[in-house]
């Protein structure tokens, strides 16, 4: 027969050609290319189901409005007292950081959904890099997180928040937030692979985020907490991220003195280290789990 069915370039894989024992090792370049292809697929999905992205933005915007108008003025900020304007500045670092962690749920639900459908068999039967299905998803979530941050920054600007430390530090703050959010998508990936239902992955990706983000310095300074809770809040990596972006945005009140614990004294380093550690550990676990998933 002639025509399209036989017209494609045959792969140079003759029968019983001597397979090299290392043929399993797919290079970094191919891994990156495959991940970008999968990322593109996930971004197209996000564009075509915009509800998910839009709802993802509503919550942080609501938090900005609620916290700055409802709580503002009733929470004591070290160095600024009960000043409403100071709380608004102080608050934004917390909301930014909390927002990027919500990417966990999206990544988890997306991967759980893929695992339930036939499409995962298609991917697993293709000569593509093993981690690319997961990495591609986390790349797409990173893009979504970035878009959400931009929208949130605009809303924050409208309610009076400002970055005071110049473009370099401002970009560094957003970079740190994106890194932190990216780390959380790998936690989400592992959750999605473990629970294997999109609904469970969504709630499983969110429940623990509330204690994590609230037992922190994000909304209330640790000085206002009971003594036994203070070290928990200060060593919470989420707090380090929040404090780091506050520093980089210049959102801390004049007289603010950070608590004495190490992550509070070195918040940028603490946050970056934590993000990298989470990525390395959870990526490894998730890719292993993916490979075993249906075997």
């Amino acid at each position, binding site marked *: 027969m002639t025509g399209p*069915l036989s017209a*494609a370039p045959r*792969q140079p*894989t003759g*029968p019983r050609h001597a*397979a090299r024992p290392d043929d*399993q090792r797919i290079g970094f370049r191919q891994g990156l290319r495959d991940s970008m292809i999968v990322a593109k697929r996930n971004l197209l999905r996000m564009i075509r189901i915009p509800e998910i992205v839009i709802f993802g933005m509503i919550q942080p915007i609501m938090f900005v409005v609620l916290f700055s108008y409802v709580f503002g003025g009733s929470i004591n900020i070290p160095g600024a007292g009960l000043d409403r304007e100071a709380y608004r500045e102080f608050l934004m670092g917390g909301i930014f950081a909390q927002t990027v962690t919500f990417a966990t749920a999206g990544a988890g639900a997306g991967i759980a959904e893929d695992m339930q459908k036939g*499409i995962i068999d*298609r991917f697993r039967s293709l*000569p593509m890099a093993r981690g690319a299905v997961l990495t591609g998803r986390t790349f797409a979530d990173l893009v979504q997180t970035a878009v959400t941050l931009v929208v949130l920054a605009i809303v924050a600007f409208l309610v009076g928040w400002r970055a005071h430390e110049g473009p370099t530090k401002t970009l560094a703050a957003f970079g740190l937030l994106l890194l932190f959010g990216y780390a959380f998508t790998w936690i989400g990936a592992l959750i999605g692979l473990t629970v294997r239902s999109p609904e469970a992955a969504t709630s499983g990706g969110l429940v623990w985020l509330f204690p994590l983000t609230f037992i922190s310095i994000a909304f209330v300074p640790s000085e206002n907490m009971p003594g036994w809770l203070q070290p928990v809040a200060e060593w919470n990596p989420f707090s380090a991220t929040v404090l780091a972006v506050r520093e980089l945005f210049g959102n801390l009140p004049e007289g603010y003195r950070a608590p004495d614990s190490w992550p509070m004294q070195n918040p940028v380093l603490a946050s970056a280290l934590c993000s990298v550690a989470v990525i390395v550990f959870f990526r490894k676990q998730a890719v292993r789990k993916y490979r075993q998933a249906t075997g």
Partner: protein
Amino acid sequence: MPGAIYAEGLVKTFGDVRALDGVDIDVPEGTVLGLLGPNGAGKTTTVRVLTTLMRPDKGRAEVAGLDVLKYPNEVRRSIGLSGQFAAVDDYLTGRENLQMVGQLYQLSARDAKRRADELLERFNLAEAADRTAKTYSGGMRRRLDLAAALIISPPVMFMDEPTTGLDPMNRQALWEVIEELVASGATLLLTTQYLEEADRLADTIAVVDHGKVIARGTSDELKSQSGGDVVEVVVHDRARLAEAEEVLRRLGAGETTRVEHTRKLGVPAPGGARTLAEVIRELDALGIEMDDIGLRRPTLDDVFLSLTGHAAGADGGEDPPPGAAPDGPPDERARTRDQVRKKVSR
């Protein structure tokens, strides 16, 4: 030398269930093997092992001359898989789906695009190419899935129940595509519950049940195993049933079957058409009126029944539980089974 698809002693258990219980398969290059069996027989598990989706507990398998367990990624470069549940992304267009799969087969973006266009045209999807797959009908989704499996014109193809759930028109269309594909020289392993499908598409058939291959051969070989041709006649007048049966006994070979209430008689007829003609002449000469007469070749259904004692499509060897909807009217089903049992016991 082992064929393009080769498996030896595959075993896979899920908890207490032995999904594969020593499956052996050998498909010579350029031929089609039909893996025929009911739900839960182990067909899909076999395909999953051969397509690197699942590691067997025991046994070994080679596809395109490569060990599936040692070189899974090399194997993936040589195979195309089309499944029972169309593995396409609902939110991507037909074109985007095919381009993505092409690129993940490591074609360049340009080659993937060209190939996607060709296949969309070939599979009658060109008009729907820029609509999301969500809007496709069942038949279109299946065609898109098959197109995805053909992106690189792989030398070895696996199709897991490609037409399950399709209406007759779409099934016919898909069969034609598969036939073309096979004519172009690909090796194909096809699983099916449809005996007609295996009969039409496969060079050889392996019948699987409870994780084992219980019979193999060409369609004709399997059919002759279950008794060859049968002359069947429906006598108009019940009173002359005995007389007609006497004729069949004389002209046929072996025991006659007789179903009183449908006035239907049957006898093995190794002489085929010649025996049929003789029977017609004789009955005519005796003035016995016939409502229907014909030469029935045993179907693969008969083969399956005679091999396993249960019908293809049933989940186990038991009769369907009361309330379960069988394929035909219950008495019809029972009757067919009785007939076959009789035939087997001869």
